[in-house]
């Protein structure tokens, strides 16, 4: 029987509970968001005793469904003040799924100082003192735990940024090789974990594909079919394995939608120097890898292993990270990008937020655009907890206020990622309206806007963007509940067999009789739950807007402004 593991940090009580009927059919984001709405007072202090951190594997995690090892982490965000689901790869989700753990709920808050570790195995769970890990970077913590227990453990941990309660601190877990770089980065959930005195969760279980499946024959057939659907699609089967997500750098640049110099221009003449092709070339030259799976059983393998000049490896460098530390700062040196990425991984910061924040600091003249050394030096302040370090850890909106900058690319306090909303307007609708704060993954309209996957909607025009974003936000919420990587959407959007095959897998696993229509209903339900939480937390329509400068400043080369009307934005959730 599946269980919920409840950890009370006030009383240090750890207990396994039966899963209430209400949660039986939920997983991943579907479960974290529902539990947060049910159990977290929307007006609570995000870093206080009433917030909860909910960690849940997806419905299919721990099965041999391809690319199904994504982990959802939920809570009230200290960055946005709203609900948050942050999604990560790594090896934790499949272990939790295989152990029959539906969710880990971290609640309460210790009255005394101290760091704790939650140790979880098939024998049970215990909370142990971990003061020896306090203040350490995530790479060290993961290394120490792998040495102390064994090299198969999954380590979910935070860095000093989370311990210092910085609003853009993430929490990470490791890949098979022990790199602590698979982040639930966005929205400051690392600070929520830090506020509870929890430094690490060690999952000591050697199982990966052992989640219970009711009809294993039917499951096998459906999983095989789904693997073929992924491998047959040119993006999932060829594009992603060859160059990883950073293959986007050049196409977004050529399309004129690459945010450059803190969202001042749409093209960067040195984008190619930090793109996926160059990354693959350098990685291979140095003995790294241009393709790598973030969790066992992923067939898209979009990750990479980038050896740095100092002998360490950054694995992976994702597109959004290469963008925020590259073109966004007018930096064209991949080694600088890798170093900034590594610092974030180690200190425990969301890379996108850190890059947006450095962009704001450059706008303020605190560092210079194009000065890689200055960016590295600034980011190193975070670990020291200096005033500048704390401003950086506070995120882009905090940095804007601190330095009097109004050109701050953020919605609901969360930094806008790697696609300018003026020349990728579908993503602009998503940034403005998703309950998560600016988030490209929440409704990735780059598909139809620029990649011509799932149809084509002109990225520079306003027509069709609201509908596109709506449909994608619904589909994404459902995918995030399954534990499947969102990138399956490339294939699923183009192949009518995609959604029915996902449903076949879920039905075979749980003995349910869901239909593809139920998937849409699930996605809509998740969004309604999240918007209900945000409304109760005080969010209104006024929060579903882009920063003003996107509507007044013209973006080159297409001479575009964000011109989708407020009333149209308010129609996104018309279901």
């Amino acid at each position: 029987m599946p269980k919920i593991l409840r950890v009370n940090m006030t009383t240090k009580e750890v207990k396994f509970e039966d899963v209430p009927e209400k949660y039986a059919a939920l997983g991943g984001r579907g479960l974290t968001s529902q539990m947060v709405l049910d159990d977290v007072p929307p007006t609570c202090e995000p870093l206080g005793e009433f917030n909860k951190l909910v960690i849940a594997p997806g419905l299919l995690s721990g099965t041999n469904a391809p690319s199904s090892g994504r982990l959802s982490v939920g809570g009230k965000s200290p960055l946005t003040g709203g609900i948050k689901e942050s999604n990560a790869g790594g090896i934790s989700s499949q272990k939790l799924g295989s152990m029959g753990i539906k969710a880990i709920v971290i609640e309460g808050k210790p009255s005394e100082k101290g760091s704790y570790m939650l140790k979880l195995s098939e024998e049970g769970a215990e909370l142990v003192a971990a003061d020896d890990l306090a203040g350490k970077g995530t790479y060290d913590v993961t290394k120490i735990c792998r040495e102390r227990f064994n090299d198969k453990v999954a380590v979910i941990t935070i860095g000093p940024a989370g311990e210092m309660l910085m609003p853009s601190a993430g929490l990470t877990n490791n890949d098979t090789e022990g790199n602590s770089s698979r982040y639930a980065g966005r929205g400051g959930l690392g600070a929520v974990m830090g506020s509870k005195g929890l430094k690490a969760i060690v999952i000591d279980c050697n199982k990966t594909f052992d989640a219970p499946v009711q009809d294993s024959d039917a499951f096998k057939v459906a999983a095989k079919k789904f693997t073929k659907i992924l491998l047959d699609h040119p993006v999932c089967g060829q594009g992603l394995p060859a160059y990883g997500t950073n293959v986007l750098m050049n196409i977004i640049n050529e399309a004129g939608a690459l945010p450059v110099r803190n969202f001042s221009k749409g093209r960067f003449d040195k984008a190619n120097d930090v793109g996926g092709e160059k990354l693959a070339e350098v990685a291979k030259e140095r003995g790294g890898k241009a393709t790598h799976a973030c969790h066992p059983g992923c067939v898209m393998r979009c990750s990479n292993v980038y050896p740095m000049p100092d002998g360490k490896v950054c694995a992976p460098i994702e597109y959004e990270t290469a963008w925020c530390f590259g073109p966004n700062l007018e930096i064209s040196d991949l080694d600088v990008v890798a170093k900034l990425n590594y610092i974030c991984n180690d200190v425990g910061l969301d890379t996108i937020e850190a890059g947006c924040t450095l962009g704001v600091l450059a706008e303020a003249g605190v560092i210079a655009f194009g000065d890689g050394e200055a960016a590295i030096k600034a980011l190193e302040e975070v670990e020291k907890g200096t005033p500048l370090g704390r401003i950086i850890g506070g995120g882009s909106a905090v940095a804007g206020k601190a330095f009097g900058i109004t050109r701050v690319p953020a919605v609901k306090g969360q930094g806008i990622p790697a696609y300018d909303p003026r020349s990728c307007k579908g993503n602009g609708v998503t940034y403005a309206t998703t309950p998560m704060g600016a988030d490209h993954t929440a409704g990735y309209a780059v598909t139809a806007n620029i990649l011509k996957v799932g149809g084509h909607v002109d990225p520079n025009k306003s027509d069709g963007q609201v509908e596109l974003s709506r449909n994608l936000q619904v589909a994404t919420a459902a995918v995030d509940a399954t534990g499947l990587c969102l990138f399956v959407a490339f294939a699923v959007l183009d192949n009518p067999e995609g959604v029915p095959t996902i449903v076949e897998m879920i039905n075979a696993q749980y003995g349910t009789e869901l239909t593809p229509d139920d998937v849409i209903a699930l996605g809509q339900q998740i969004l309604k739950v999240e918007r209900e939480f945000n409304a109760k937390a005080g969010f209104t329509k006024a929060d579903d807007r882009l920063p003003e400068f996107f509507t007044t400043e013209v973006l080159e080369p297409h001479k575009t402004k964000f011109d989708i009307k407020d009333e149209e934005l308010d129609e996104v959730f018309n279901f």
Partner: protein
Amino acid sequence: MTVALLRGEYMQVEVRVFSGLEKFLDQKRFGEPFSVEVQDNWDLRSLLDHLSIPKEQVFTKLVNGKHQELDYKLNDGDRVSLFPPVGGG
């Protein structure tokens, strides 16, 4: 003078290929811009034939940052960017 006039009869476009398409060209790196002289009735199909890049390998054809089809008629100074299927996020 004559040479200059003759040159004037041709248009030039600036081409970039990415993400593996460079393997069809001699000594060109991904993203490296190069000029191609094109005749005034050429479309993207003619350009791909001229460069010996198999059409089925080219999924995205951006001209001046906008998606175009194979029958797009080239103009002098066009920036042409060619990609196989790519995606990420």
